[in-house]
């Protein structure tokens, strides 16, 4: 009965499939246990999220594919993807998802997990460094803009020193130091 010698279809060696047994089946549960990700498994791959995304056209993995990869257990690929960092966090995908999957929030969770594994792109580390050094990301240089609006030149109550001190105790500092 077990005669299946004659094979149809392409040979396995040429396809080089992803071996499902090598994927991390717990990844899905891990993400689901994180804030706002409970609805992950409700995804039915409609790709509304991708249609809504203003930037996914230049991504290798589109939002619906990333969600799918999470469900399948492709942890390595998702956490080292550049897309989770390129996400504008505009929430368009999340607003429109018909199954209430919190796509943007899930990408935040992915970023957090990636950070824990030290997988943060260098430009993001660069931003962190700037934040640590200057206590703010955008320094107001053009005083005239504020003046034109009738505001005093310096931002009132801005205490970059306090921010710097606090940041030293956060993961941002650990990441920046680890990244150096």
């Amino acid at each position, binding site marked *: *009965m*077990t*005669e*299946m010698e*004659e*094979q*149809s*279809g*392409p040979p*396995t060696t040429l*396809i*080089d*499939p*992803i*071996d*499902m*047994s090598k994927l991390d089946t717990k990844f899905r549960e891990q993400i689901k246990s994180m804030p706002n990700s409970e609805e992950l*498994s*409700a*995804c*039915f*791959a409609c*790709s509304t999220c991708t249609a809504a995304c203003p930037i996914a056209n230049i991504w290798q993995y589109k939002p*619906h*594919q990333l969600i*799918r*990869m999470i*469900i*399948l257990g492709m942890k390595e690929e998702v956490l080292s993807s550049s897309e989770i960092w390129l996400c504008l966090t505009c929430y368009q995908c999340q607003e429109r998802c018909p*199954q209430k999957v919190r796509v943007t929030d899930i990408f935040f969770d992915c970023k957090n997990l990636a950070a824990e594994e030290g997988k943060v792109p260098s430009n993001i580390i660069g931003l962190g460094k700037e934040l640590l050094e200057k206590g703010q990301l955008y320094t107001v240089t053009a005083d005239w803009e504020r003046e034109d609006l009738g505001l005093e030149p310096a931002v009132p109550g801005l205490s970059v020193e306090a921010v710097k001190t606090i940041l030293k105790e956060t993961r941002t500092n650990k990441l920046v130091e680890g990244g150096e």
Partner: protein
Amino acid sequence: MSTSNPVLIIGAGVAGMTAAVELADSGIKAILVERQETVGGNALDLYKAFPTDDCFYCFEGNRWRPGIRKCFYRSALIDQPNISLKMNSEVNTISGKPGQFTVTLKVGPQYIIPKKCTMCGLCIEKSKAFHLLSPQCQPQAVVYTPSINDDGAKQAEEECPTKAIRLNAQPTEETVKVSDIIIATGYHEMKPVNMTEYGYGKHPNIITQLELAKIIDPNGESGGVPVRPSDGKPVKRVMMVQCVGSRDENYYPYCSKICCVFALKHANILTQERDGVQVSVVYMDIRTYDRYERYYRTARESGVEFIRGRVSLIQPGEDGSLDIVVYDSLLNKYLKFSVDLFVLSSALEPPEGTAKLIESLGLKSASGFIGIADPISENEVVVGDHIYACGTALGPAEVPESVTQARAAVSKIIQSRK
């Protein structure tokens, strides 16, 4: 017009049985012809049935199941005097004119008298010639295989406590006059032997959904534990593939309509009620019409894996498992799985003999199923003059739809007699 003539019903599945009972209860005689040895048709071993998740055939054997209603068909088919049930029988010829058909029936030999058999099991112990088709069989009686005519069988005939056995029963031919004909011949689940890419028939662990239904039925051989046909070992990984032979111009162009729902039903039973079974479903579209979307959402929530794409390659692994490569069209990647059971959601096709029936009665064909007489009208059960069809004889349908159509056919007949 001989309005007192009975109505002929061909096929005793859910649809034919409903029609018979409804006619009989309205005082109209019904001749119910069934070619198998049990009524119930394809729904006999379905275990839980959508949309209510309980059983439509609530016989003694499954009283313990939660939420079971006792089936009213049970006594009706045998005891209702207006129903004449012809088991093991087929329609031979149909002549005459609408409203006054003359039908000859080939009635199979009645080895066991169902009214007498108490299913005590004595004969089964005496000889292999007797067996019980299913605890849900109807008539509730054992069946006899005449080719195994051994001494034990003769002994059983003598010792049967109710004298229910007649080993020398002969087939007969009967001629009946009927006013109307209801076709309730149902469907057949395609055996996809010709679709070589799926390896059906080449490996014991490649099966169809109806075969899976039998395996997971708590009344079945393994008591509902999913086991591999190859070695009886427990099943841990199941892969299903949708649209096998449906929506395929090489086989059947239509969508079989309910295979998505029963695949989801099976996936949910496996993941929620059985221990540690992982299910993957390979699909092109998941078509869960109206209320059935709920089954899809439940399946995703309970961890069933959905892969949009098609099966690329199947290779028997060691130890009876199957290595399957699937092309995932959403990711544009190939995925490799190792599974214990590969289940094909195979097309629901017209049963054998449908083409002949269509031709001899001059009916229309709808992709091989019985076509409705006037497609523009809303009379979807009227297929000819005094000829009706209901249930899956008209094309793939669920039980509730089949029952509704059976009732519609009966109501048309009652109206025509007024």
